[in-house]
């Protein structure tokens, strides 16, 4: 593939990143998706939209999140200098809120009065329920029934925030089915409803607008690392579920040739088993949920459920822009297993006093593996995109600890 002049141009006018992306939706939804695109084109060119967004980012979300030099981890690993972008300190505990704030502002501009969302781990559901509480809009969150069980604390959090959580039993009752169900709800409630998608996936314009809202992560890092080190980083690392925290960190750096960019997928029990969730490194291109991208699927094109210890990573697809960045070779995609992530989770907790979510623990596992062989002058920034409070029950179970009160 020939190298494009820029990796930041975004989609063509039909919403494709190369062959990926697009608008593979039923006709009933098509006019709605065109409306969202039109509304977003107007909003993104309007300074007042961004000043409202930035004001909420600062005073409600708590941005900018710090760029923190992880000194003890760096000493322990003995190679590159490791920085964490502390998006786990955001209100609600993850990067997801950057996106939900942006989308609810758009929904309000469009005059929509009812919000729906899908969620896996529950972080996006919580972030959506939160902004709905903030703006007084009714919120319905679709969640696979297995996740409803696995993520009980987040289910309760959403309910406290006033959202209705609808367990999804259709299909295989997982995140992909929650997304199907949200799309079905949208088809059935076209007049008043806005669908807040939780990652850089779905039909155009979602991959673009979610990326734009999350890019605040990478934009802050550019300034912060200049301030701390006087130069750009050498390496960026982030975990990938649908790919939104990674895209938010990566996108502002895509045209900086000297910056090596690495995305870490969930390898579950291993890429050589059928229990993983690595769409880019273990799947192939297909069409699902409105876009063409890499998918976990059978040789006959049926979608397979992913597996990961982290509920936030087990989506069988990946944002289409990542698919394009993989094929162009601009971003490297690797993976980390459940047990590597668990180990990294504990390492970070003990050395840095930071309990990471299991999702960024995958990024950390990769960091821990490669940093020791790197030069000490190398600068690495990892996106600490979520905190691990939600995961302590899962971790306890895997460590053989029984906890009461849950």
């Amino acid at each position, binding site marked *: 593939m020939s190298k494009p002049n820029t990796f930041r141009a975004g989609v063509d006018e039909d919403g494709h990143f190369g062959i990926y992306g*697009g608008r593979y939706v039923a*006709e*009933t939804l098509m*006019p709605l998706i065109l409306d969202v695109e039109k509304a977003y084109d107007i909003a993104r060119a309007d300074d007042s939209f961004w000043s409202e967004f930035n004001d909420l980012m600062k005073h409600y979300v708590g941005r900018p999140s710090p760029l923190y030099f992880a000194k003890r981890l760096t000493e322990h690993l003995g190679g590159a200098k490791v920085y964490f972008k502390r998006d786990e300190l955001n209100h609600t505990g993850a990067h997801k809120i950057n996106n939900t704030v942006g989308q609810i502002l758009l929904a309000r501009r469009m005059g929509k009065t009812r919000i729906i969302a899908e969620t896996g781990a529950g972080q996006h559901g919580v972030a959506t329920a939160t902004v709905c509480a903030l703006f007084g809009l009714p919120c319905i969150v679709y969640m696979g029934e297995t996740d409803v069980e696995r993520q009980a604390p987040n289910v309760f959090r959403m309910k406290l925030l006033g959202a209705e959580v609808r367990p999804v039993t259709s299909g295989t009752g997982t995140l992909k089915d929650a997304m199907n169900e949200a799309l079905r709800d949208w088809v059935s409630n076209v007049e008043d409803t806005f669908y807040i998608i939780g990652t850089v996936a779905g039909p155009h314009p979602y991959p673009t607008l979610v990326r734009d809202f999350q890019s605040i992560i990478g934009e802050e890092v550019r300034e912060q690392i200049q301030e701390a080190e006087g130069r750009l980083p050498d390496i960026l690392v982030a975990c990938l579920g649908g790919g939104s925290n990674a895209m938010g960190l990566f996108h502002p750096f895509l045209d900086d040739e000297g910056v090596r960019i690495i995305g870490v997928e969930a390898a579950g029990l291993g890429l050589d088993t059928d229990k993983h969730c690595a769409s880019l490194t273990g799947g192939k291109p*297909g069409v699902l949920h409105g876009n063409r991208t890499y998918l976990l699927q059978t040789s006959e*094109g*049926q979608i397979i459920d992913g597996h990961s210890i982290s509920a936030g990573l087990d989506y069988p697809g990946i944002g289409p822009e990542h698919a394009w960045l993989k094929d162009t070779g601009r971003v490297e995609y690797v993976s980390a297993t459940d047990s590597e992530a668990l180990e990294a989770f504990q390492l970070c907790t003990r050395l840095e006093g930071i309990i990471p979510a299991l999702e960024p623990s995958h990024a950390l596992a990769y960091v821990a593996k490669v940093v020791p062989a790197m030069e000490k002058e190398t600068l690495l920034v990892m996106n600490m995109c979520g905190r691990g409070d939600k995961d302590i029950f899962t971790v306890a179970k895997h460590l053989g600890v029984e906890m009461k009160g849950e």
Partner: protein
Amino acid sequence: MSTRIERRFKSLQDENRAGLVTFLTAGDPNPEVGFDILKGLPAAGADIIEIGVPFSDPMADGPAIQASSLRAIKAGMNLAKVLESVRDFRKIDDVTPIVLMGYFNPIYIYGVDKFLSDAKAAGVDGFIVVDLPPEEETEFCLPAREAGLNFIYLTAPTTDERRLPRVVKHASGFVYFVSITGITGTFAASASDVEGHVARIKKFTHLPVCVGFGIRTREQAAEIARIADGAVVGSVLVDIVAANVDLPSLPEKVFELVRCLADGVRLAR
């Protein structure tokens, strides 16, 4: 050269009646019984047969059709076998039009070019691919047309007059009006609503208009047959399969309902 679909609508016009279009998922509850049902549909009164190609994630369908897809996949149904059953069907019936209905991914994975030539050779007449709106027509819809097959475009209540010309621009065979903003198997639109929409669509195309989503009874089928060129019935047939999966007389149960719906359609005008 006309297609079976075009010839069928011509003869329906001569009879001054609408057609009954049946939808069932291929290989539901299993490939053998599914084929027995398929074979018997024309005699029971189906004028056009839609065969659902099973897909794991049918986002525009309700629980009934999704469950039927999963039953069929579990029983070993796949796209190659769907084509095989069309080939077998054509040995006994060379006039009833067959439309494959489904989602793009299984076709994409099979390979668009190979699929088009295999489908044509098997005796398929047209396609409805739910997740290929006009915005995504270049890869499959237009090549299908060039291959002499019909690609049937969907219109919905949300498709307004500004958009309709775009949607029907490359349509052939017939235009499918999805009569509700909702998923399959939920509720029915009112006849007067449907009538207005059909008239609106006909301002932009000379093709026949078939109406689907929500038709469950003989009366509803008759009502639609009065105001459109075809009534599509799916979920209620799929429900019969689901409720009688292990019953030896399952095909007969399906035919009974098809006969009843066909009566409604035939006596409508």
